[in-house]
């Protein structure tokens, strides 16, 4: 692993990149993994004041970041530029940048071989322009914000999906206090089913102690991306309480309505020919003529 050879190689690549049409902002495709660290180049041309570039890394790589700034109207012959990582200035990265055909050019090679090397790298031109490169492992699409609810004694499946690219493998952790415990397959308890782009953790014989946050980890060479999945285990009594209360309410209402009706009809019986509304429904047949005539008249008026 000769760093200077790598640097030379990257400089050559840089020249090739600069000679081409400069308006592209896409990073070059990932180089296949070689025994020594592979190289990669990301080049950004900035026309305004700032820009953010997201770079997805799966494997350790020697990454060359190229910043080209077209400057503004009063282009001074030189400007002081420096590099930052996660907001902090990188030691001895400050140097003077010369104008070259109306462009300022800053280049630096970073060795990204550990998780700690991922982060937000910025090249800063004086106080005026900045390009951010966010180096990260592939992230999950979206967080499942709602907890998964399951019942004591039941089984539940927790899934995680990663659209692209496919991780090398998957791992599962359970949060225990602040630490994360690795989960391995246990018969009758934990079962892990993996495919290329998604994983499923089956937990059998749930108990209330199983409630908590689980983490699924998508393992890449450079870093394992985690995603929390919350599980809540409840007993069957929990939904049973509202159910019973609704049941009681229904029974009470039905009884009340039927009792009310019985009371009303008892009041009507001693009244005999009473004129309450319900009795009108039960007119004897003989009155049909009159009712028929009046109701049909009423219809027409309607």
């Amino acid at each position, binding site marked *: 692993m000769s760093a200077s050879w790598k640097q030379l190689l990257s400089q050559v690549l840089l020249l090739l990149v600069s000679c081409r049409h400069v308006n592209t902002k896409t990073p070059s495709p990932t180089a296949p993994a070689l025994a020594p660290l592979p190289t990669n180049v990301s080049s950004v041309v900035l026309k305004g004041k700032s820009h953010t570039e997201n770079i997805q890394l799966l494997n350790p790589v020697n990454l060359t970041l190229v910043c080209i700034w077209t400057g503004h109207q009063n282009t001074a012959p030189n400007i002081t530029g420096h590099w930052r990582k996660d907001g902090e200035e990188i030691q001895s990265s400050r140097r003077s940048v010369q104008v070259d055909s109306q462009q300022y050019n800053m280049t630096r090679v970073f060795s990204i071989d550990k998780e700690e090397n991922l982060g937000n790298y910025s090249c800063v031109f004086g106080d005026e322009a900045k390009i951010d490169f966010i180096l990260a492992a592939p992230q999950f699409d979206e967080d499942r914000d709602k907890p998964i609810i*399951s019942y004591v004694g039941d089984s*539940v499946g927790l899934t995680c999906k990663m659209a692209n690219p496919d991780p090398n493998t998957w791992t599962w952790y359970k949060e225990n206090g602040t630490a994360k415990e690795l989960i391995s397959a246990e018969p009758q308890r934990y079962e892990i089913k993996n495919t290329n782009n998604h994983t499923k953790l089956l937990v059998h014989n749930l108990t209330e102690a199983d409630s908590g946050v689980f983490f699924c980890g998508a393992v890449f060479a450079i870093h394992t991306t985690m995603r929390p999945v919350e599980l809540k285990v409840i007993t069957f009594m929990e939904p049973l309480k509202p159910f019973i209360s*609704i049941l009681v309410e229904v029974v009470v209402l*039905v009884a009340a309505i039927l009792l009310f009706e019985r009371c009303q009809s008892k009041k009507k019986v001693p009244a005999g020919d009473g004129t309450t509304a319900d009795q009108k429904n039960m007119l004897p*047949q003989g009155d049909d003529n009159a009712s028929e005539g009046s*109701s049909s008249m009423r219809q027409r008026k309607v």
Partner: protein
Amino acid sequence: MFYSLNRIMSPAPADALGYKPLDGGWGWMVVFGAHISIGFAYSTPKALSIFFKDIQEDLGASSSEIAWISSIMLAVMYAGGPVSSMLVTRFGSRPVVITGGLMCGVSMTTASFGSSIVYLYFCIGIIGGCGLSLNLNASLTIISKYFLAKRPLANGLAMAGSPVFLCFLAPVNQYLLGQFGWRGSLLILGGMMLNCCVAGALMRPVTPLCRPSSCAPPKKVEQPDKQNTKIKRSFVKNLKTFLDISFFKDRGFVIYLIGNVMFIFGAYAPIVFLSAYAINQGVEKYSAAYLLSIMGFVDMFVRPGTGLIANSKWIRPRIQYFFSFAMVFQGTCHLLCPLIKSYAFLVVYAVFFGIGFGMVFALIFECLMDLMGNERFPSAVGLVTIIECVPMLLGPPAAGSLVDKFGDYKYLFFMCGSVIVTGGLFLFVMNVYNYRMLAKEKRAKNRERNQSTAENQDQGNVSEAEMEQTEMNGAQQDVENAETPIEM
């Protein structure tokens, strides 16, 4: 003559009922009960879809397998119509609705313990569907027993239960899902559906025979016997008409049926695909979901409003025409939809969609009651619902296949809109024809009757009543059919 034609489009006379309907008082409690019952009937199959994703993950089913739950439930609900009609005619509305409520409660409660998709098909789909079909038919029938003059309004209020309950159930289901998971939610939903039993308790029967506690006072004991035989005879008659041949001889019924089938075929597909269409036009996901909520919200107010309008002096005699107008309006909305590109106009479309949908559904059963009369309504509605099963199940997949084939949603809207507009126009034209024919037949009958007035003094009353208010087929059939004399 056309004026008199319009004038005579009044509903079947009260004399066929044998009593004067309440048109108020306890009737409004019955409307409330019907509102709850119909609300659960129409909104449950739709509201269940909120649980589908979780059930799918838990039971390992595919999306189409899960969607079958709703389809089976709707199909059974509609197909159970004739059975429900028979039970309602035999036992009255109250026991049937209480049974329906119990079945629904049991169905959801047992479904919460399910561990396979077939078990859910049986519990939710079949048992739940049966329960809902009992509810639907019985609720509509009891309204026709309690209301005549204010029946369109009562129908509008009762049918408004569907959008109200959908608006209520959707967020409640989401909340329950977050708190208790799908199993607990189904359990609690089962409990809520037991409230249909409360609705059933409210549906106090009007004939004296159904419950001993509400029997007529002793001096009217002789009447119950006559009523008893009358009910037995009508039960036997209904058994005969269950196999629907005599209904198909009724011109008005066939016209109504054809128009309805066309409407139902095109009615549900736009609802199913509205969100997808909006997202296709570039609208954001949550805003697209809002469109359906807007439609449901508008629907909630339009239904009773339409009932009120239909009850008015001017519209009531022409209610069948109003129904055709509502259908044409709805169809035109759909035809205009593909011209809409922006979200603001989509909201306007959703509002008009809600208006049209509400208008049609407020009138759909009122028009059948108007055509059939109280006696034949329960069997008629059972027959109509079982036949409507077919377009209801075929409509959305047919529309979906259009989308798949052409890759464009506009053909879906064109198809649905044109089918509905055609149905509406068909109803309008055929109703004009039908009433002309009815008037002709009536005049011929009156001439015959006048020639033999001497036989029975009651007949004089009959013809007088007939001339005063020429009625629909319902009354005609009653006159023709000696089994149900106008008076005893």
